[in-house]
C-alpha cells in the first residue's frame, strides 16, 4: 500500500464513522451525547499513553538503527526476542490501537511478525489489572490463565508468522 493511500484510508474510515454518528443522531438522538461523552472520557484517559508512545517512538528513531532492530528482534533473534516481546507486551500500557503506529515503524524496520503478534497478545496480561482479576476470579485462576496466555502468545506468534510469510 502506498503512503498516500494509507493516510487516505484513515480519513475515509473516520468520515465513515462520522456518517454513522449522523445516522444514529437521526434515528436515536438520545444515544449521541452519551457516546460523545464516552469518547471524550477515553481521549482524556489515553492522552498520557499517547505522549509516552510519542516519546518512545522519538527515542527509537534517535537511538535504534534498523540493523540493531533486526539483530535483537529479527529472524535470528531466537529465544531472547520472544522473551523481550512477552515482557514488553506485559509492561506496555494503554489501548492496543495506540501501539499500532510504533509497531508499524518496527515492522518496517525488520522486526519479526511473530514477535509483534506475541507483543500484542501479551498486552492481555496487565500487572496492575491482575489484582482486580484476582478479586473477580480468584488467585489460582489468575495465575493459571496468565501462564497459559503467555505460552499461547508464542504459539500464536509462530502461526501468524507462518501465515503472513506463506507464499500466496
Amino acid at each position, binding site marked *: 500500500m502506498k503512503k498516500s493511500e494509507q493516510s487516505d484510508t484513515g480519513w475515509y474510515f473516520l468520515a465513515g464513522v462520522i456518517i454513522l454518528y449522523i445516522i444514529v443522531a437521526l434515528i436515536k438522538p438520545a444515544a449521541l451525547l452519551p457516546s460523545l461523552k464516552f469518547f471524550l472520557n477515553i481521549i482524556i484517559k489515553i492522552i498520557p499513553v499517547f505522549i509516552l508512545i510519542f516519546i518512545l517512538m522519538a527515542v527509537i528513531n534517535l537511538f535504534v538503527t534498523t540493523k540493531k532492530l533486526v539483530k535483537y528482534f529479527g529472524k535470528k533473534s531466537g529465544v531472547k526476542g520472544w522473551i523481550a516481546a512477552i515482557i514488553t507486551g506485559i509492561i506496555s500500557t494503554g489501548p492496543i490501537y495506540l501501539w499500532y503506529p510504533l509497531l508499524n515503524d518496527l515492522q518496517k524496520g525488520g522486526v519479526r511478525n511473530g514477535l509483534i*503478534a506475541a507483543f500484542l497478545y501479551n498486552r492481555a496480561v496487565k500487572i496492575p489489572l491482575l489484582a482486580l482479576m484476582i478479586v473477580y476470579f480468584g488467585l489460582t485462576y489468575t495465575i493459571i490463565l496468565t501462564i497459559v496466555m503467555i505460552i499461547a502468545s508464542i504459539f500464536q506468534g509462530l502461526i501468524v508468522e507462518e*501465515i503472513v510469510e506463506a507464499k500466496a
Partner: protein
Amino acid sequence: MDKKLVIAVKKAARALYKSLPILLGVILLISLLNILIPKNIYSSLFSHNIILDSTIGSVLGSILAGNPITSYVIGGEFLKQGVSLVAVTAFIVAWVTVGIVQLPAEITLLGKKFAVARNITAFVFAIIVALVTVAIMVVI
C-alpha cells in the same frame, strides 16, 4: 545531535499524525457501541454447551472493546448469572486479544494479511486458552 533529535521527533510526530484519523475513528466506534448495546443482553445468548459457550464468549469478546476492567465486570456478572467459567474466560481473553472494531486500524498500519491472521488465530486461541485454563483448574 540536536539535528538528529529534531528529525527523530518530527518522524514520530508524522507517524502519529498519519494514524490519528484511524485512532479517532476506532475510539468513536467503541464509544457508540458501548452506549448502543445494553450489557444485560449478552448473558441471554449463552447455552450450556461448553464448546458452544466458549465460542459465543470469544465472539462477544471479539466484537466488544474497551478497558479490560469492563470485561472483568461483565465477566463477573456472567458468572453470577450462571454462565460457565470457560465461556467467561474465552470472553475476557478475546476482549483484549481480538479487535473487530480496531481491525481497520490494524489492517492499515500492520498489513491486511497480518491483521486478519492475528485476529483469527487470537479468536481461536481465546477458546483454547479458556478450555486449557479451566481444565487445569479442574485437575488442581
